[in-house]
């Protein structure tokens, strides 16, 4: 029995390492009489924590194991998505090191919160049990609520944190209520048990359907899927930009994985009504995100709406995975898309971060005017990132969308894909607008001030990666495919 416990602890050792390292900066601060440690040291400790966790995950990878009585699963998806979240966090830490709203006196606390939030995400990714999922979501969210409020001078930041907290708690309550219903009908909260009984319960048991719907809504809130998307623009706008970049990518990636695990069953095949509801949610998410983004003049808000739209695209892959006969293909496309989406979103938000001179500044489209004349490399990188978000080949974003649409077409979901295509066309309009501003205007450009070495590096690095991996998407696809099939 003790042997078993030891093995379980070894499996979650990345989490332990991460947590220990996240405490280090705060402890240093406490023992130095509440004096902020050197931010370089803090950042370095953060990186050590992330690399330790990555290393341990890599050392344990290849194992298809469960731990703690099946509540945690350690498989290919866990490993792959953990790497992605660690990568995102490393980039987000670099951005927050540079950024005016997060650089201040509380960087040690910032790193602690960030890594604790990652802890929640990894729990979410590993979770094989609804209660564990809930713990993961809560750990992640509680840290995020505070992170959103980290900008000390900005009223919007406080407002965002408060909105996020109130609505998030509400969503968590719904989620928990849903778990209760599912436990009541299935008699278990472990995913394999639930997924086994989906086929029989979904068409016969109303209580189970209610529970499933509530759990779905809880997930929908976290990944900002219609009708629970309304918080996204305000929170993304108000939060410090590095935190926004972190939320838009890492939260989405980890929550979608848990969401995906809930659909890993043949049992959904006959649940036509449930499928229809989800399809319309996907379509409306895409439409609302894209149409609202067209009307934005604030660059950050536009990206917030575009991230809603991207949740809609990912839903297409999710539905193809859940309601078709080829879960692997759908799941591969979703994970591939999350990967490409994370890269391009991080890069674009990094550009926004560079333009923010003060804590309460907003970046209007007009501020990009004439940027190409002054910062050619940066403009080119942003162009690549935006074209990738729009899905123009040969960028990674194109292949992401291509695999999503392929997975849906394989399941004959033509109308869903058609909506995806229509939305891609709408999105081209607003993704091209910043490019128009940068290149097709002769105004004198705004000067970018402040320290931004690492932010600049992020922009250029993500843009380069998007082109290179776009041209050579095959190895990435193969890796994702392997990680997905490893699971089953």
């Amino acid at each position: 029995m003790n042997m078993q416990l030891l093995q379980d602890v070894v499996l979650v050792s990345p989490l332990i390492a991460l947590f220990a390292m996240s405490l280090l900066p705060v402890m240093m601060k406490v023992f130095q009489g509440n004096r902020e440690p050197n931010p370089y040291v803090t950042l370095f400790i953060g990186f050590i924590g992330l690399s330790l966790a990555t290393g341990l995950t890599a050392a344990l990878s290849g194992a298809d194991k469960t731990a703690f009585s099946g509540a945690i699963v350690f498989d290919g998806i866990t490993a792959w998505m953990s790497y992605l979240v660690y990568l995102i966090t490393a980039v987000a830490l670099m951005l927050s090191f540079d950024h005016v709203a997060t650089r201040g006196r509380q960087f040690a606390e910032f790193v602690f919160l960030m890594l604790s939030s990652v802890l929640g995400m990894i729990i979410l990714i590993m979770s094989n049990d609804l209660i564990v999922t809930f713990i993961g979501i809560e750990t992640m969210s509680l840290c995020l609520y505070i992170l959103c409020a980290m900008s000390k001078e900005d009223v919007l930041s406080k407002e965002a944190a408060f909105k996020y907290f109130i609505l998030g708690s509400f969503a968590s309550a719904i989620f928990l209520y849903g778990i209760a219903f599912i436990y009541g009908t299935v008699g278990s909260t472990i995913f394999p048990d639930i997924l086994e009984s989906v086929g029989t319960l979904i068409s016969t048991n109303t209580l189970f359907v209610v529970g499933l719907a509530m759990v779905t809504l809880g997930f929908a809130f976290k990944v900002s899927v219609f009708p629970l998307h309304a918080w996204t623009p305000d929170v993304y706008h108000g939060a410090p930009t590095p935190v926004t970049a972190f939320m838009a990518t890492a939260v989405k990636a980890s929550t979608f994985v848990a969401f995906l695990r809930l659909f890993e069953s043949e049992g959904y095949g006959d649940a036509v009504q449930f499928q229809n509801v989800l399809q319309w949610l996907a379509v409306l998410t895409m439409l609302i995100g894209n149409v609202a983004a067209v009307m934005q003049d604030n660059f950050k808000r536009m990206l917030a709406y575009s991230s809603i739209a991207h949740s809609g695209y990912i839903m297409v892959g999710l539905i193809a995975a859940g309601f078709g006969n080829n879960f692997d293909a759908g799941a591969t496309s979703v994970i591939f898309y999350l990967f490409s989406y994370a890269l391009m979103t991080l890069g674009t938000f990094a550009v926004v971060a560079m333009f923010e001179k003060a804590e309460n500044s907003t970046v209007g489209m007009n501020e990009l005017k004439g940027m190409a004349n002054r910062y050619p490399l940066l403009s080119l990188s942003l162009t690549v990132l935006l074209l990738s978000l729009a899905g123009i080949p040969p960028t990674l974003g194109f292949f992401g969308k291509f695999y999503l649409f392929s997975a849906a077409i394989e399941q004959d979901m033509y109308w869903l894909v058609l909506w995806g295509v229509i939305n891609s066309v709408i999105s081209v309009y607003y993704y091209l607008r910043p490019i128009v501003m940068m290149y097709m205007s002769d105004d004198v450009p705004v000067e970018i001030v402040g320290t931004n070495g690492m932010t600049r590096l992020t922009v250029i690095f993500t843009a380069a990666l998007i082109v290179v991996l776009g041209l050579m998407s095959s190895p990435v696809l193969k890796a994702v495919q392997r990680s997905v099939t490893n699971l089953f």
Partner: protein
Amino acid sequence: MLLTAVTFLPLVFALLIACVPSQQTRMIRVASLVFSLIVFAVSVVLVARFDRSTAALQFAERLPWVPELGISYFLGLDGISLWLVVLTTFLTPVIILGSWESISTKVKGFHASLLILETAMIGSFLAMDAILFYVFFELSLVPMYFMVGIWGGTRRVYATLKFFIYTMLGSLMMLLAIIYLMYAHHDTVGLFSASLLDFYKLQIPFVAGTFLNPQTLLFFAFALAFAIKVPMFPLHTWLPDAHVEAPTPGSVILAGVMLKMGTYGFMRFVIPLFPEAAGYWAWLFIFLGLVGIVYGALVAMVQPDIKKLVAYSSVSHMGYIIVGLFAMNVYGATGGLYQMLNHGVSTGALFLLVGMIYERTHSREIVKYGGLAKALPIFTILFLIVTMSSIAVPMTNGFVGEFLILLGTFEVSRVYGVVAVTGVVLGAAYMLWMVKRVFFGPAGELVKDDHHPLVDLNLREIVVMAPLIVLVFWMGLFPNHFLDYSKASIEHLIQTRDAYQLTIHTSAAPGAASGVTSEVVSAAETAEARK
């Protein structure tokens, strides 16, 4: 390796140019010109080594790209694409020399865009893998978007966005159709493939008379993408905007090559992939083509702006090509292909000439001109020659193309033929009327303006026009010099349309096709087996 070279050399050159400091404008221009001439030289090698006796793919190169989904890097050349590639490599140096003085801002960006665009266009003509084709097809939008948006006229942003979004809408539908075909191939053969050669072998269910059957829907998804690109009436509205706002080199490349990507798509994808649907719906496309011919000509007649007139004449001329292709006979298809080249040469030349006069007067309004013939004799002579080519006077290239198309059209139906012929008359009418108003009669306000005396073409401008003028007569007097290369491919396309297949010709490019599993059957044998 030859095809990869001709496709990616411009991209490499574009990267090289990006490394030159942007103040060195003269060096950038000279380097771009030399680079584009090198690419042209490579394409001439292609022509020289091209085996005109076969319809099979030559110089084929194939490497796996995304093997999980059967996507490969697959380039191949046949009689249909050969001249379009050469047209692209030929027009690029002409454009660079033609824009020597007219592009004065952001010279580096302009030349880099132009060379990237060249890669995208050549790639679309050579790609034999549907996804690879799509990548090049979409990639070509980006540099064009910048060319119109940065160096264009006052309404350039509107025009360039309209162009981009319009084209994107069509091509995304095509992407869905391509994905569908990939899965159809997977369902029938058990393997993923995006290769066109494999797509040709698919039997796609077709039900005549209804709309909701796979082949008809796929046919329209592809046709929409290409019809927007061509552009066919009533999807042409982006074209006049884009042409008027585009800088001269942008207009030349747009009219000269990019529109051909649409008609090429009809020849390469739509007709051979969906033979039944294409046959069944041919009347619709011929009808829309005819409407385009007449409508384009009538609208061109009333344009006050020379460039807009030429833009609408493009709509009319592209209508001919569509009619020729959907006539589905050898005359029509040959004429269609030939007219693609003619239109590239003569409309390209017209846009260059309009650009030259615009550089002198900064106006394109017809009413402000008049009596130019006295002021600018060389310009007038060149303009007249190109006009003759555009209105298809015998001995010029336009005549051969239009004559073949009309032959093909009459073979289908006399009514179609008669309507198409009115387009020839109307074409002559609007062009000659414009020439009369601009070059003859009393001197207009811009021509008699003594403060800004007009200067005739300089040596550079004559050098720009010379190869185009030579081609007008060469293609008009000796069409077989060109058509011989395409004959086998076009006959193969028309004669085996219902069960079209392409094979890879190995002897032309030894070693290049290694690893290709398709059996090698010469085109002649395939054709005989069909009979």
